């Protein structure tokens, strides 16, 4: 089965690469450009996993994460936070708010793919 993955990030320069990478890995990829759009898309499309940036217009990644975790219907959604905020306190906050994993920019795409597969319960190709 093809998993749906949402990329929520306001920087087109990272979205290009992530989109290409994940499509190549065989996922169905959705894109959201800000926090509100991300929330709407999650509610509508119910993706299996969200790559969530922290610094986004309208709603931050932390807020999105909190909103998703508060919604009973969306409990299955895995959240992988991707962010330039690298302080320990930020990681702790992300995990506390319900993220499943946290990766600090910059990251290697190989690790990202591995992490995604891991979260979706697949064995990486």
């Amino acid at each position: 089965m093809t998993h749906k993955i949402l990329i929520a990030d306001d920087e087109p320069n990272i979205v290009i690469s992530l989109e290409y990478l994940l499509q190549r890995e065989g996922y169905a990829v959705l894109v959201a450009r800000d926090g509100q759009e991300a929330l709407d898309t999650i509610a509508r499309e119910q993706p299996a996993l969200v790559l969530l940036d922290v610094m986004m217009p309208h709603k931050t990644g932390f807020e999105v994460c909190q909103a998703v975790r508060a919604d009973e219907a969306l409990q299955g959604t895995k959240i992988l936070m991707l962010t330039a905020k690298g302080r320990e306190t930020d990681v702790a906050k992300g995990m506390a708010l319900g993220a499943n994993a946290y990766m600090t920019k910059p990251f290697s795409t190989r690790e990202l793919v591995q992490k995604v597969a891991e979260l979706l319960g697949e064995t990486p190709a």
Partner: protein
Amino acid sequence: MRKIDPRLVLAVAASGLVMALWLVLMSVIVWSTLDPQERLAVGDVLAPRTVLVAMGWLLGLFLVAGTLHVLHRRYVGDPHRLLEKIRVVVTATTPQQLTPRGTAEMQAMARAVNELAAQRDQLRGDMAAQVAQASYSVQQEKNRLAALMAELNQSVVVCNRDGRILLYNQRARQQFRQLAQGPGLAAGAELIGIGRSIYAVFDQQLLAHALERIHQGMARGVASPSAQFVTTTQGGQLLRVQVAPVRAALAEGAGEETLESVVSGFVLMLDNVTASVEEEAARDQLLHGLTEGSRASLANIQAAVDMLGYSDLEPAMRERFLGVVRDEVGAMGRRITDLAQRATQRLKTRWPMEDMLGADLAAAAQRRIAAQCDRPVSLDAIDGSLWLKVDSYTLLQALTYLAHRLVDEFDVRFLQLRLQGTGTHAQLDLVWSGQAMSNETVMSWEMDSMRFGNERSPLTVRDVVERHGGEMWFERERVRHQAFFRFMLPLASVQGVVDAALGESEYSRPEYYDFDLFKQADQGSALDDRPLSELAYTVFDTETTGLNPAGGDAIIQIGAARIVNGKLLRQECFEQLVDPGRGIPAASIPIHGITDDMVAGKPRIGEVLPVFHAFTQDTVLVAHNAAFDMRFLQLQEKATGVAFHQPVLDTLLLSAVVHPNQESHRLEAIAERFNVTVLGRHTALGDALVTAEIWLRLIPLLQEQGIHTLRQAREAAQKTYYARLKY
């Protein structure tokens, strides 16, 4: 207005009675010698003339009364006045003499009293000399401490346990001036002053908490306990305050040492950290921009590069990923250039620099190079207006070191210094004529650690330059056959310069301390029952457009001085012209000398009174004929919302309490009685200072009459007030 002596009245009445009795007695004697017919005849003759006899008696009585009155004045009134003046001499602290007046005996007595007073003064002088001798070393130590404090570049305020200020330095005063609200009418004197409460500036809880931490530290046996806190002031400035306890010198066997008894006060060291905190924040922001901003860009680049690594990438996608890389690399380049620029602009080096007048630095360099290198050094084109931010010690070392090598290795015969400004920096040139050296030589001079004879400094010229965040290079002027080393040095910020300039113009000999306040413990007891000699006073005077406040006359000047612990603090005065919002009557100008031009553009009473109110906080008000001045203040109460509820004392009434027999209680007359020099009479501050001196001399005279507390003084004043009303 003087009272008529009842004894005089009694004497006159008695004489009248005696005269009447004498007349009756004589009549009876004469009557008894007459036979009945003669009696009839005399009766007929005298009966219509009874009135004449009575008139004669009255005339006689007037003559006697007049004589008695003259005698009374001469032999009772004069001695009385003399007595009052003698009392002044008795309590006078400075030598004072009576002017002999009246009868020969009175004059002789006055002279005798003068002799006694002279003897007393001499004895007192001897004793004072001995005491002065004894306390000289103590005083000198105090002075040394005060001088040290005055010169310190840090704000220091010393308080007793109740938060009353005992000592502060010049720097603290400047800092409080910046903290003062509004246009700084009293130049911060309403916030800082001997005997004032520090809690006007800081929240009491904040200090209480700091002191508690100190107590805890002391209880644990910490050697030098101190605490610090950061607080914001009303003006939004950030102050870092360091608190250290002042330990009391305990007498031996003074019982158990409780923590409270060990600490007799505390020292506050204040730092305005607004600027450095802002700098810190800016630095944080830059760092933040560098890390998080770069992380995102790096992530974008890395992801794109990873994608580019796929061999099966179609050309269109490859071009898009390359585009991402180019874009992000460009963005990072721009970000770093921008950061570097802002960093050099904003972030001064962390090495502590001092503000120094450029001309002073050049002169110091001139002296030092001339002395160490034994060569003449001239100054040329020195811009005297430049203030530099430098570490002068190492900078002078660097200049001297370079000069030394020039002299030693190139036999340079004379040197020159130039100083010019270039926008944000100053250029300081060390110039010489003749041979130029190679760039390699210059480089090695720059990078070698500096040596002076056998001494070697760990620093190189380059280190010194970098410490200043500046630059240094070597340049030739071929036309003039000259060469020079040029130092680019940072200029001081304007704020710092203003501070330094203030410090110079204001003479820093302090009346800034009064350690005796350490002894004053709780001021909890109501003012009314406290001794007059212990209270703090604001002695003030106003100049007004006229005498009728209800009729529209207004205040045009307020002057005030403070008395704390029996000392007049001449450095903590308040003097302010006030725009009355109306014309000043020409007739009043000769009295106070204030013209319309002088008050034009001055603050209105509504701005001045709140500051004056703050100035008078926690003090008793004193004025000469206080009712007049208070009336003007009270009329403003509604408009300004400023009410003066402090107790008020009137030197006019209290002078009458002390000297009921003197004819005049005008300020000049009292000043003359007390031998107070009158300067600047009829300026508000001048009169306030005279009133203050008078008040200080009245206190011991009141004490002689058993008037010790504020309550007693107020009651006595009230009695004379009614007494004066009656006559």
